[in-house]
């Protein structure tokens, strides 16, 4: 169990951490290549959508052939994507590398795949906690890698990497490609015995999908996760601009993002641990309603640096804390045979919400001149998600046909 947890946590730390700092490359790459910001933003939007869509297929492969092979391929594609991102000289090549390759790589090295192994190898009684530990590791990776990538881009002139010194952002991407390759040895710790041989007579992929999509609780979880993606990405992308519009310094925005990252670690771990003792639907409802309350309080209170820090800490606690309970419910209800694939479908919903949160934030800002409408939508969606998670059923689904077989 310890091996699965340590290797799984380390893999998610790397995979989630490396991608978290991609925004830092916007300025150096667009300046050097002479591209617009839209070119860069488009590649990252494609990356998020590819991550969501590829997650479905990667999940199916991981459930069928084991996570180990998927992680090996994901690690290679991650490194290849980062290396080609460094040398891509045209917008199309950049979109293919930073968008498509890295999107596939993230699908193959993040939660859905790792959670499949965690779900299959850790006792159901401790599953929620274990998912909390893994998600907290991903949160730590995001918190850690932002300053690390910033340092790499600015060209830390360490003796050992003198060959890279002065090259700047390109060498930083090659170093990150090397880091992504570390996922390969870590994946050995998640090697499982072949799954197909031991599961004859069980559900096919089509049966599993038909069952999940016909089950109301699965639809409700998907809708809730959509809201999670919308809120998190809207705040992550647009909060710095919102603060700037209201006359706060960039330093305040930096500290706010750091606080979100820091408290996110504790929040995801706590949500996983609480899932051991309390109904996960209640935890999810509480997270969504608390997010709405935090946003309302933030907007109602006078905007100062202190109010921003309190809001950032509160949102940090609620940031990725939906990940462990949502995935734990899926494993609990549908079992772990097709878990990575089902988790992939839920995550696709999250990514569609993310896309909408980022895009609608900008679109409505351009249309109205402020973020008021989008904040309102975020609050309303939070209340909606809190309500729809309440009737989610957490008991294992009854399969009379399978039991008879």
């Amino acid at each position, binding site marked *: 169990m310890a091996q699965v947890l340590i290797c799984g946590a380390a893999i998610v730390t790397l995979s989630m951490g490396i991608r978290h700092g991609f925004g830092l490359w916007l300025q150096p790459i667009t300046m050097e290549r002479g591209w617009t910001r839209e070119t860069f933003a488009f590649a990252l939007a494609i990356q998020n959508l590819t991550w969501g869509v590829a997650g479905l297929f990667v999940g199916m492969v991981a459930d069928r052939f084991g996570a180990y092979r998927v992680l090996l391929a994901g690690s290679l594609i991650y490194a290849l994507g980062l290396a080609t991102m460094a040398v891509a000289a045209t917008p199309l090549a950049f979109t293919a590398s930073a968008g498509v390759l890295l999107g596939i790589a993230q699908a193959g090295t993040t939660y859905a795949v790792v959670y499949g192994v965690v779900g299959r190898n850790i006792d159901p009684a401790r599953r929620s906690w274990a998912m909390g530990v893994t998600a907290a590791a991903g949160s730590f990776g995001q*918190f850690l890698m932002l300053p690390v990538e910033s*340092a790499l881009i600015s060209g*830390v002139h*360490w003796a050992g990497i003198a060959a890279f010194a002065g090259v700047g952002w390109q060498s930083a991407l090659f170093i990150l490609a090397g880091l992504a390759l570390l996922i390969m040895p870590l994946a050995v710790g998640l090697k499982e015995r072949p799954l197909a041989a031991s599961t004859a007579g069980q559900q096919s992929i089509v049966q599993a999908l038909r069952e999940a999509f016909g089950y109301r609780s699965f639809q409700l979880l998907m809708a809730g996760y959509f809201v999670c993606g919308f809120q998190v990405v809207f705040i992550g992308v647009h909060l710095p601009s919102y603060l700037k519009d209201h006359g706060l310094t960039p330093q305040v925005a*930096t500290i706010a993002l750091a606080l979100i990252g820091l408290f996110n670690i504790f929040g995801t771990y706590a949500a996983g641990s609480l899932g051991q003792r309390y109904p996960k639907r209640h935890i999810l409802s509480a997270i969504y309603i608390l997010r709405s309350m935090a946003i309302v309080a933030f907007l109602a209170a006078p905007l100062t640096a202190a109010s921003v820090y309190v809001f950032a800490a509160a949102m940090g606690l609620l940031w990725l804390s939906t990940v462990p309970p949502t995935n734990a419910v899926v494993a609990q209800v549908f079992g772990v045979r097709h878990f990575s694939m089902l988790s992939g479908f839920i995550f696709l919903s999250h990514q569609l919400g993310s896309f909408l949160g980022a895009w609608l934030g900008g679109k409505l800002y351009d249309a109205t001149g402020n973020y008021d409408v989008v904040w309102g939508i975020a609050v309303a969606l939070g209340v909606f998600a809190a309500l729809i998670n309440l009737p989610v059923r957490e008991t294992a689904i009854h399969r009379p046909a399978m039991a008879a077989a």
Partner: protein
Amino acid sequence: MKRRFAGWLHSRAFWGVASLLALGLVFTAYLQPGLMFELANQVWNCF
């Protein structure tokens, strides 16, 4: 000596303090990136 070292590794307090120090260090990197780069270079130069 070896046993004492093993004792540390199994101590929750040790890992708790180490984790808090690591988190504090990363948080400082957000506030004072220059200071952290300097520190990283100093540590690297010790080898």
